[in-house]
C-alpha cells in the first residue's frame, strides 16, 4: 500500500509540473490543445493524490509500522475510527491531506470556471498547480509520509490523546481545507493580472470562491472553538493563541474581500484594492500554514517541532514578493471604472469595513510577531496574551458590529441624511430599549451593555427590512411564507449576507455573555458532597476507573439540581494516557439557550476526592448555532442563479469579456 502511495505521489508531482508548464506555454503560444491537455492534468491530480491518500490510510489500516509515519501516529490499541485523525496528526500526513484537498478544489475551480474567466484560465490553472508543485514537492523531497523505518517495530507510538475527540474528525480537515482553499481566489486574481484581463471578468468567480473559502475556514475555526470548549477542559473556546490567530487572520482579510468585491461587482470600483486583498489573504493563509508547522512562536497547538516551517516561510516570502511585483507591473491597467461620489454611501461604508477588518488582522499579526521583535531588541521574549487582544481588538469588533447595522441600509453612490435617519431611527430605538431593559435588570458592565445593544441594533435593522419586504409582497396577494421566500430569492447576495450577519450577532452574543458573565469555581468534592454555583447545585456521587489498552478512564458521576428540581445525571470523564503522561478531559455540559453548566473533573486525589472545575457560561449555545446559520447564509448568497439571466446581465457590462470568451470557448 505504502509503495502505491509513494508512486502516485511522484505521479502527482509530474502531473502538477506538466500542468503548470503546459498551461503557460499553451497560453503563450496560443495553443488551445496544449492548454486543454494541461487542464486534463489538473483533472487527474485528485485521482493521483486520492490514490496516495488511500495508500497512507491503507498502511494505517494494515498496521504497517514499517512506515515511519504510521508508527509515529498510531498503535494497535488505538480505536480503528481514529485512523482518519491519525492520518493528519503529523506534518507529512497533513501536507498530503492539504495537497489532496487542493487537487479537488483545483479540479472543481477549472471545471466550474465561468465563460468570462476562460481567457485567463490557463494562468489561473498555472498558479494553482504551482502551489500544488510546492506541496507535493515538499512531500517528495523533505517530508515523505511513506518513508520506511530500517527496523520494523511491533507496535506504534500511538495517537496524541488530545486528538481523540469527535471534533477532531472535522475541525483539522476543515481548517486545512479552508486555508488551502484561499489558493483558488488568489489564483483567480493572479490569473486576471497575468492575462491582462484586469477588468471585471474575474469578479463573479473570485467572489464565489472567496465566499466559499471564507465559509470553509470560518466553519473550521468554529469547530476548533467547539473542540477546545468540549475537551481542552478550561471552559473557553478561544485563547488568542498564535495558531488560532494564524487561522483567524486570513479569515478576517477574506471577510474584508467578500464585502469590497460587491463594490466592484455593482460599481466597477476598487479593482486594484480587491486584487491586493486576495494577495494579502493568501499571504496570511500561508503564514497560517507556516505557524502550524513548527513556527517560531510557542503555542498550545504546535504539533511536531520541525524545520519544515522555514520552507513554508520561504515559499510565503517568494509568493508575496512575486505577486506584488506582478501587481505593480500591471498597476496602470487596474484603474477603476467609476469614482466615488460621496463618502456617505455603501461604497464608503465598505471602505470603513475594510479598514476595520484589516485593522483587526494587523493587530493580531502584531501580537503574534511582537514576542520575536521584543526578543530581537531587548533579548527577552515577551508574552502577548489574551488581555492584549481583548482590549485592542474588542473595540474594533464593536465598531464592526455597529457598521453591520448601518452599512446595509446605505444606498450605493450617495445617501442623504434623510434616508439614513429614516433607515436607522427604528433600530436605534430598539437598541436603546434593549439597553434600558438590560440596565433595569441589573446588567452593568459597560462593554457588555454596548455589545448587547449593538446586537439588538443590527437584528432590528435586518428584521425590519425583511418585514417590510414581506409585507410589500404580501400586499400583492402572496402568503407570508411565499412572500418571504420570494423576497430572499429576489436578491440572494443581499439576503444571504443578512443571514450571515445574524450568525455574527449570535456569535457576538455568545462571546459577550460568556466573557462578561461567566462564573467559574474550583472545588474539591468528596463523594456525596455538593457545591453551589449560579443557582445550580452540583453533587458528586462517585467515580469509577476503567483500564483500557492505552489509557485509564476515570468516569465521575454528578447529579445536578436547581433548587429542588433534579436536572439529571452527568458523567464528565478524565482519561489518563500513561505513555504520553497526558490527561484529556471530557466535560459534562448542560446546555440551554440561556446558559451552559459546564463541569470538568480535574485531578482525582488519593482519598477519593475529586478536584472539579465548574462554570456557568451564559449564551454559549448561540455560538454553535451561528455555524449552521453561517452556512445557510453562504448557501443563499451563492446558490446559482438561472444561467440565461446571468448571461444577459453580464453582456452589456463588458462586451470585450464576452467576445474574447466566445472566441476561446
Amino acid at each position: 500500500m505504502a509503495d502505491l502511495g509513494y508512486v502516485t505521489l511522484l505521479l502527482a508531482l509530474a502531473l502538477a509540473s506538466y500542468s503548470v508548464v503546459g498551461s503557460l506555454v499553451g497560453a503563450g503560444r496560443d495553443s488551445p490543445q496544449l492548454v486543454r491537455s494541461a487542464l486534463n492534468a489538473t483533472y487527474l491530480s485528485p485521482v493521483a493524490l486520492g490514490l496516495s491518500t488511500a495508500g497512507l490510510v491503507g498502511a494505517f489500516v494494515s498496521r504497517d509500522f514499517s512506515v515511519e509515519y504510521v508508527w509515529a501516529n498510531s498503535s494497535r490499541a488505538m480505536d480503528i475510527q481514529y485512523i482518519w485523525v491519525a492520518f493528519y496528526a503529523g506534518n507529512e500526513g497533513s501536507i498530503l491531506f492539504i495537497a489532496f484537498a487542493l487537487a479537488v478544489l483545483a479540479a472543481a475551480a477549472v471545471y466550474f470556471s465561468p465563460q468570462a474567466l476562460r481567457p485567463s484560465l490557463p494562468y489561473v490553472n498555472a498558479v494553482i498547480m504551482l502551489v500544488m508543485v510546492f506541496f507535493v514537492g515538499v512531500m517528495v523531497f523533505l517530508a515523505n509520509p511513506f518513508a520506511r523505518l530500517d527496523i520494523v517495530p511491533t507496535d506504534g507510538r500511538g495517537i496524541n490523546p488530545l486528538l481523540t475527540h469527535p471534533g477532531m474528525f472535522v475541525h483539522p480537515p476543515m481548517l486545512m481545507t479552508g486555508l488551502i482553499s484561499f489558493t483558488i481566489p488568489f489564483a483567480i486574481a493572479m490569473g486576471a493580472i497575468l492575462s491582462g484581463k484586469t477588468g471585471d471578468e474575474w469578479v463573479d468567480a473570485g467572489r464565489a470562491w472567496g465566499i466559499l473559502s471564507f465559509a470553509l475556514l470560518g466553519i473550521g475555526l468554529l469547530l476548533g472553538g467547539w473542540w477546545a470548549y468540549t475537551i481542552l477542559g478550561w471552559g473557553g473556546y478561544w485563547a488568542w493563541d498564535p495558531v488560532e490567530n494564524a487561522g483567524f487572520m486570513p479569515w478576517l482579510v477574506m471577510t474584508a474581500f467578500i464585502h469590497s468585491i460587491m463594490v466592484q461587482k455593482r460599481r466597477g470600483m476598487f479593482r486594484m484594492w480587491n486584487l491586493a486583498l486576495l494577495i494579502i489573504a493568501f499571504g496570511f493563509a500561508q503564514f497560517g500554514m507556516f505557524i502550524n508547522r513548527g513556527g517560531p512562536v510557542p503555542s498550545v497547538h504546535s504539533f511536531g517541532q520541525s524545520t519544515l516551517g522555514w520552507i513554508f516561510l520561504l515559499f510565503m516570502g517568494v509568493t508575496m514578493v512575486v505577486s506584488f511585483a506582478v501587481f505593480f507591473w500591471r498597476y496602470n491597467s487596474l484603474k477603476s471604472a467609476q469614482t466615488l461620489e460621496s463618502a456617505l454611501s455603501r461604497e464608503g461604508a465598505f471602505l470603513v469595513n475594510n479598514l476595520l477588518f484589516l485593522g483587526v488582522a494587523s493587530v493580531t499579526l502584531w501580537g503574534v510577531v511582537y514576542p520575536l521583535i521584543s526578543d530581537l531588541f531587548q533579548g527577552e521574549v515577551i508574552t502577548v496574551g489574551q488581555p492584549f487582544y481583548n482590549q485592542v481588538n474588542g473595540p474594533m469588533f464593536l465598531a464592526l458590529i455597529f457598521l453591520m447595522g448601518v452599512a446595509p441600509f446605505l444606498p450605493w453612490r450617495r445617501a442623504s441624511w434623510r434616508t439614513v435617519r429614516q433607515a436607522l431611527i427604528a433600530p436605534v430605538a430598539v437598541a436603546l430599549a434593549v439597553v434600558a431593559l438590560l440596565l433595569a435588570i441589573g446588567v452593568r458592565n459597560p462593554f457588555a451593555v454596548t455589545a448587547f445593544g449593538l446586537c439588538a441594533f443590527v437584528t432590528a435593522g435586518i428584521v425590519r427590512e425583511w418585514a417590510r419586504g414581506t409585507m410589500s409582497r404580501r400586499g400583492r396577494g402572496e402568503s407570508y411564507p411565499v412572500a418571504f421566500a420570494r423576497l430572499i430569492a429576489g436578491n440572494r447576495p443581499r439576503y444571504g449576507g443578512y443571514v450571515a450577519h445574524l450568525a455574527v450577532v449570535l456569535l457576538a452574543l455568545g462571546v459577550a455573555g460568556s466573557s462578561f458573565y461567566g462564573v467559574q469555581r474550583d472545588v474539591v468534592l468528596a463523594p456525596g458532597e455538593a457545591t453551589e454555583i449560579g443557582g445550580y447545585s452540583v453533587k458528586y456521587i462517585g467515580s469509577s476507573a476503567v483500564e483500557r489498552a492505552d489509557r485509564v478512564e476515570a468516569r465521575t458521576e454528578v447529579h445536578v439540581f436547581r433548587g429542588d428540581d433534579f436536572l439529571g445525571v452527568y458523567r464528565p470523564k478524565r482519561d489518563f494516557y500513561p505513555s504520553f503522561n497526558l490527561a484529556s478531559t471530557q466535560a459534562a455540559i448542560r446546555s440551554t439557550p440561556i446558559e451552559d453548566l459546564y463541569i470538568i473533573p480535574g485531578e482525582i486525589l488519593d482519598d477519593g476526592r475529586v478536584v472539579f472545575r465548574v462554570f456557568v457560561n451564559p449564551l454559549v449555545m448561540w455560538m454553535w448555532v451561528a455555524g449552521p446559520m453561517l452556512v445557510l447564509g453562504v448557501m443563499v448568497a451563492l446558490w446559482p442563479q438561472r444561467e440565461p439571466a446571468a448571461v444577459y446581465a453580464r453582456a452589456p457590462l463588458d462586451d470585450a469579456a464576452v467576445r474574447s470568451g466566445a472566441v476561446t470557448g
Partner: protein
Amino acid sequence: MCYNITDMPSILNIRERINGPPISLGLLALFSIAGLAFIAAGCASQPDTTPSAEEMEEEAQGIDKSLMCPVCPSETIDQSQTQLAKQMRDIVREKLAAGESREEILRFFEDRYGTSVLAEPPRSGFNLLVWVAPPVALAAGGLVLAAALRAMRRSHDSDSAVDAPADEPGLEPYLSAVDREIHGITPAADETSEGRD
C-alpha cells in the same frame, strides 16, 4: 449625575447639523450607545465595602488569567493543569488573603519568572510600543482612507466638470432593470429595495 434615556433622540438630531463623512454619524451613535451604557453603569456602582469571599475569588481568577504558566507554552495558570500552575494559583489566593493587591502579586511573579510571565506586556519602556502601535496604525489607516476618499471625490468632481453629466444615471437603472428581468419583480415590490442594491 445620572443620564436620562429619553434625552437620546435630541442627541441624535445633532447630526443634521453635521456635514461630515458617514463615520461621524456612525461614531456618534456608537458613542451614544456606549456612553449611555458607561454613564448608567457608573451611576449604578456602589461604594466599595470589604470584599466577600466570592469577590476575592473573582479577583483571584482575574489574576490567574493575567499570569502565564512558565512551563507550558501559551497557557495561563488559569488554563493549565500542571502542578506548577496549581501552586501558583494557590500562592495568588494566599497573597490576596494576606491583603496584597493585584499589582503586588503580579510584580512578585514577574520578579521570579521574568516579564514573560505576564499575559499582557507591561505598558512601560520598550513594551509601550506593543500598545501604542495599533491605535497609531489604525489612525494612520483612517487618515490614508480619508485622503483617498477626498482624492477620489475631487477627481470625480473634475471629471464631471469636463463631462458635464453631473447626475449621470450610472448603472443603477440598468441593474434594477436586470433585477426585474431576472426575478420578475414588478415595480410595486421594487419600492422596498430600490436604489439599495
